[in-house]
C-alpha cells in the first residue's frame, strides 16, 4: 500500500516548468503554446529544483523523485514554499504552524482586517492572540519555525505581486477573505465590503498567479454553503457532476458529467464564494492554473499540537454572532450559563469539521497538487449534524464539566429552510487523499471546554456575552431575536430528515490507510526519511 500521492508525477509538481511539447514525428518541433493543445506524448518540462536534468517528460513519480519526501500526510515537496493569504486568521495561523512543523517554507500576508472588523463590532477573540511580531517570535522559539510575513492587503496587487515574486510560492492557500454570512448581511456597506474584498481580491490573485507562479497550486477556501441545501434532496456532489449523473427532460436524456453543479448561496457572503468559484474555474481553463476549491464544512475547535504548544501560539476564537461559528458559540454560551441559541426549529443540517482535521486535509491537498489546468473541488467535511443535535452534544459534554445547560429556540433571522434533506458526497479526501477524520465531535468539544474554562478566558467570554445572540436579520431588520422556547437537553423529539454523508470509504477501507501512516510514522517524527 502506497502513500496517497505516490503515483503522482512531475505533471502535478509545482517545480515542473512547462517548456512546450515536442513533436517527435518531425525532428523535434517545439511547441511553445502548449496550453492550446493538450497532448501527453512529447510533453516537455524543466525542473526548477533539478535544472541539471535538462528537459524531460513529466513522468517521474513523487515516490521516485528525491525532492518529494514521505510524511504521514503523503509525499511532501521538501521545503515546499507555501504562501498563506490571511495568515493571521483562525485557520491561516494554525495552518502556518502545521506546515512549518512539517518542514515547509511558510510565508504569509495579512492586513489584520479580521482583528479590526471584530473589534469594530465590539467583540474580540476570546482566546487571547498576540501581535504578529510576538507570534512569529514564539513560532521560532517554541517550534523552530521561520515564517516570512508581510503586512499586505491582498487588494494591493502591486505589493502582493512583489512579495509573490520574492517568494515564488509553490502553493498558495487563500484564506484572505471575510468569512461571515451575517457580517455580509448587516447592511449595504458590509455586503459590498465582503464581496469586494473576496471577489476582487481573488480575481486579482488569479492574474498575479498567471504572471508570477502559474505552476503553483491554489488551494482556495470556499464553503459547503455555496451549494445551499436543495429541497429536492439532490446530493451535494463535489463541485462537478459525476459522469453517471443524468438529466432527463421530456423523454430525452443528457449526461451532466463534468459540469459544475448548481450553486444556491444563502447570503451575500456565500455569493462572493460562488463568484470566486467561477473566476477560478475560468482561470484554470484560460491559463492552465490549477486549483482545489475547498468546500469546507462549518469549522469548530481550538486544537492542533502546534497551537497548543504555547499560549503565544494560540489561534483566535470568536464567539460573537458574526464571526463565531455555531459550535464555538454554544461552548461559550454553556460556560456563561446561557441557554444555547438554536435558530428556528434547529432541524437545519450542516456539514462540520474540526480544526485539526481541516488542517490535515489542507496539508494533504497541498501535497497532492492538481494537474495543470485542473480545477477540482473537494467537500471537506467529517460529519453532518442538525443544529439542535449539536446543542445536545455540547450540553452533554458541558455536564461533564459541571455545567447545567439548557437549550433555547429563538427566531431565525436567516432565510433558510427549517426542514430539508441533506446528502453530501465527500469521496475525494478519504479515497484519493488518504484522509480519515481523527477528531470526533465530543473530543474537540471537550478540548474546547478545557481551554475556554480557564479563568482569564471566561472573563473574555463574559465581555462579549451580549454579542452572541443574533440581531442581524437577512430581512434587514435590526433587533435581537426573541426566544420561542427553552427546553432541557434530551427532552425534544427529533423530527425532520436524516443527514447522509457519502464517503465510499467502505470501498477503500481506512485500515489500509492507517497501515501506511503507521509505516511512515515509523520513519521518524515528521517522517522525513530518505527514499534512498
Amino acid at each position, binding site marked *: 500500500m502506497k502513500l496517497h500521492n505516490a503515483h503522482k508525477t512531475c505533471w502535478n509538481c509545482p517545480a515542473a516548468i512547462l517548456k512546450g511539447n515536442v513533436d517527435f514525428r518531425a525532428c*523535434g518541433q517545439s511547441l511553445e503554446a502548449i496550453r492550446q493543445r493538450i497532448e501527453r506524448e512529447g510533453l516537455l518540462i524543466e525542473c526548477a529544483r533539478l535544472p541539471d536534468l535538462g528537459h*524531460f517528460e513529466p513522468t517521474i513519480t513523487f515516490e521516485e523523485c528525491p525532492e518529494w519526501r514521505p510524511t504521514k500526510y503523503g509525499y511532501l515537496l521538501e521545503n515546499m514554499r507555501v504562501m498563506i493569504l490571511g495568515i493571521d486568521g483562525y485557520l491561516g495561523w494554525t495552518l502556518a504552524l502545521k506546515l512549518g512543523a512539517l518542514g515547509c517554507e511558510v510565508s504569509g500576508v495579512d492586513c489584520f482586517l479580521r482583528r479590526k472588523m471584530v473589534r469594530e463590532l465590539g467583540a474580540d477573540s476570546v482566546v487571547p492572540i498576540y501581535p504578529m511580531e510576538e507570534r512569529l517570535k514564539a513560532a521560532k522559539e517554541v517550534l523552530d519555525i521561520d515564517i516570512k510575513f508581510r503586512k499586505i492587503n491582498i487588494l494591493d496587487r502591486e505589493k502582493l505581486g512583489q512579495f509573490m515574486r520574492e517568494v515564488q510560492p509553490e502553493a498558495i492557500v487563500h484564506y484572505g477573505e471575510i468569512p461571515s454570512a451575517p457580517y455580509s448581511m448587516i447592511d449595504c456597506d458590509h455586503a459590498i465590503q465582503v464581496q469586494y474584498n473576496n471577489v476582487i481580491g481573488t480575481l486579482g490573485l488569479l492574474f498575479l498567479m498567471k504572471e508570477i507562479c502559474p505552476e503553483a497550486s491554489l488551494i482556495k477556501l470556499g464553503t459547503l454553503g455555496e451549494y445551499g441545501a436543495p429541497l429536492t434532496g439532490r446530493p451535494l456532489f463535489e463541485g462537478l457532476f459525476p459522469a453517471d449523473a443524468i438529466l432527463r427532460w421530456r423523454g430525452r436524456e443528457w449526461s451532466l458529467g463534468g459540469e459544475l453543479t448548481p450553486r444556491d448561496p444563502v447570503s451575500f457572503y456565500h455569493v462572493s464564494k460562488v463568484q470566486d468559484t467561477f473566476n477560478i474555474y475560468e482561470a484554470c481553463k484560460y491559463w492552465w492554473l490549477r486549483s482545489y476549491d475547498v468546500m469546507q464544512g462549518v469549522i469548530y475547535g481550538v486544537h492542533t499540537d502546534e497551537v497548543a504548544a504555547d499560549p503565544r501560539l494560540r489561534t483566535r476564537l470568536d464567539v460573537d454572532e458574526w464571526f463565531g461559528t455555531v459550535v464555538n458559540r454554544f461552548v461559550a454560551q454553556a460556560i456563561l450559563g446561557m441557554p444555547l441559541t438554536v435558530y428556528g426549529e434547529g432541524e437545519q443540517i450542516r456539514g462540520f469539521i474540526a480544526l485539526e482535521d481541516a488542517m490535515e486535509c489542507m496539508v494533504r491537498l497541498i501535497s497532492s497538487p492538481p494537474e495543470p489546468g485542473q480545477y477540482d473541488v473537494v467537500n471537506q467535511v467529517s460529519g453532518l449534524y442538525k443544529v439542535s443535535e449539536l446543542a445536545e452534544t455540547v450540553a452533554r459534554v458541558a455536564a461533564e464539566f459541571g455545567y447545567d445547560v439548557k437549550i433555547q429556540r429563538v427566531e431565525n433571522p436567516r432565510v433558510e429552510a427549517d426542514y430539508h434533506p441533506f446528502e453530501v458526497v465527500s469521496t475525494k479526501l478519504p479515497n484519493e487523499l488518504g484522509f480519515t477524520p481523527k477528531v470526533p465531535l465530543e473530543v474537540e468539544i471537550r478540548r474546547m471546554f478545557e481551554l475556554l474554562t480557564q479563568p482569564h478566558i471566561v472573563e473574555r467570554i463574559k465581555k462579549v456575552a451580549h454579542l452572541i445572540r443574533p440581531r442581524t436579520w437577512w430581512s434587514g431588520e435590526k433587533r435581537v431575536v426573541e426566544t420561542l422556547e427553552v427546553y432541557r437537553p434530551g427532552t425534544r423529539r427529533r423530527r425532520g430528515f436524516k443527514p447522509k454523508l457519502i464517503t465510499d470509504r467502505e470501498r477503500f477501507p481506512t485500515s489500509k490507510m492507517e497501515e501506511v501512516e503507521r509505516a511512515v510514522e515509523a520513519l521518524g517524527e515528521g517522517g522525513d526519511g530518505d527514499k534512498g
Partner: protein
Amino acid sequence: MGRGAIIGLDGVPHGLVEDLAHRGVMPNFRELLDEGVLKPMRSSIPAVSAVSWSSMMTGANPGVHGVYGYTEFLPGTYVVAYHSSRWLKAQPFWRRDPSKRYVIINLPATYPAGEVNGVLISGFVAPDLERAVYPRQLLEELRELNYKVDVDYVRASSSPLLLFKELAETLKTRVEVCRRLVERLKWDVLVFVITGTDRLEHFLWDAYRDERHEWHGEFLEYFRHVDEAIGEIINLLEEDDALMIISDHGMEHIEVNVNLNRLLEDWGYLKLENDPKRSYNAIRRGTKAFALDPSRIYLNRVGRYPRGSVEKSDEEKLLGELTELLQDFKWRGRRVIKRVYRREELYHGDAVDKAPDLVLVPEEGFNLRAGLFRGEVFEREEGLSGKHTEWDALLYVRGVEGDAVPDSPSIEDVLPLFQRLMEGEPSEAS
C-alpha cells in the same frame, strides 16, 4: 588563414536543390553550381538533426560525440529526457579552436548556448530564447526584431497560410540578424543555418512533388526566398572567403508510419502497463527490448534500467532473433527495413556504451518511429508528408574541383573539409 562560411539548409535533399536550381527557382544556387562542386552526402544514422548536426559540428562519429537522437532516458530511469547541448561528449569546432571568432546563427542541437568566442544563437529545439543566445547582451536586440528560433508550431499546423507566413517572417529576421552581426563583428567563421526548409518539407513535401498540389506555388516561392537569403549571405562575404553549403539529411514522402514499439509488443519483446500517461514508465518487468525515436532499439538490460530483464548472457541471442525478424518484416509484400545495424557497425568511440543496440534504416516511404501506445503497427500519416532520409543530404563547396571532395562524403567529413578549405588546402591529397 582566411575566413570561411557554412550555410546550412536543414533537411534539404541534394536532388531538390539540383532540381530547383535548374528550374530557375534558385538562380543563386544555379550560379554557384558553376563555381564549385555539389554532391550528395550521407547523413548520420539515424538521420535526425540532433545527431547529424552534432556530427557536423564535432567532425566525429556518434560513438564519440554521444548523441544518438533527440531523446535519451535519464540515467537509471525510463524518464524521457530531451536533447541538450550538454550531452555532447566531443568538442564542437568553436571550442576546439577558440582563437578564432565565430558567428553561429541557428545551428540546431546547440541549446542551451554555451560560451563561444563570438556569437552563438542556437537553432531548434530551444524552449527559451534567453538560453539560446550567447552572449546574453544580444537578447534585447533579438527580441526587438521578434527573432524566433523556430516557426510557431501551433500556428503553422493550424493552417498552411500561417505556416508560410511564419516561414517567411522567420527567415527574413534571421537574415537581418546575420547581416547586422557580420557587419558589426570581426569574424573568422560564419555558420548560418536555415531550418524553415525542414519544417516546410515535413508539412508539405507532397506540395513539392505534385505540381497540381494546392500549395505547390507557395512551396517553390519559399525556396525562392531561401535562394535570395543564400545570395544575401554570400554578398556579405569576401570573394576569397571559403564557402560550403550543406544539409544535414534528405527528405522523402511518407507512405506509412511504422510504430516500432507496437511491433515489439506484438512480437512479445515489450510489455507495457495499460497507462499511456506513464509513458516509458509503463515498461513492465519481462520486457526484452524497446524503441526510442526514430529507429533505435535498446535491450532492456539488467542493471541499466529499473525493470531490466535482459542478462548479458542472453544479449547475443536476442539481437540475432530481432535482426532476423526485422529483416523479414513485410508490409503488403514489401520489405520494410532496408538494413538492421548492430551498434558496433555504426559507432566507434568512448560513448558507444550508450548507443542503441540496433538501429534500423527503412526502405523508401516507411517512416519508422517509436510509437509507444499506438493501436496499430502501421498507421497512415495525417498532418505530415515528409520524412528524413539518410542518403541524400547535400554538400556544396565553392571554388574547388570535383576531386577535392570525397566521392561519397558523409556529414562527419564536413568539418575536416571546411578546415582544409580555410587553410587553403581543399584537397586531402594536396
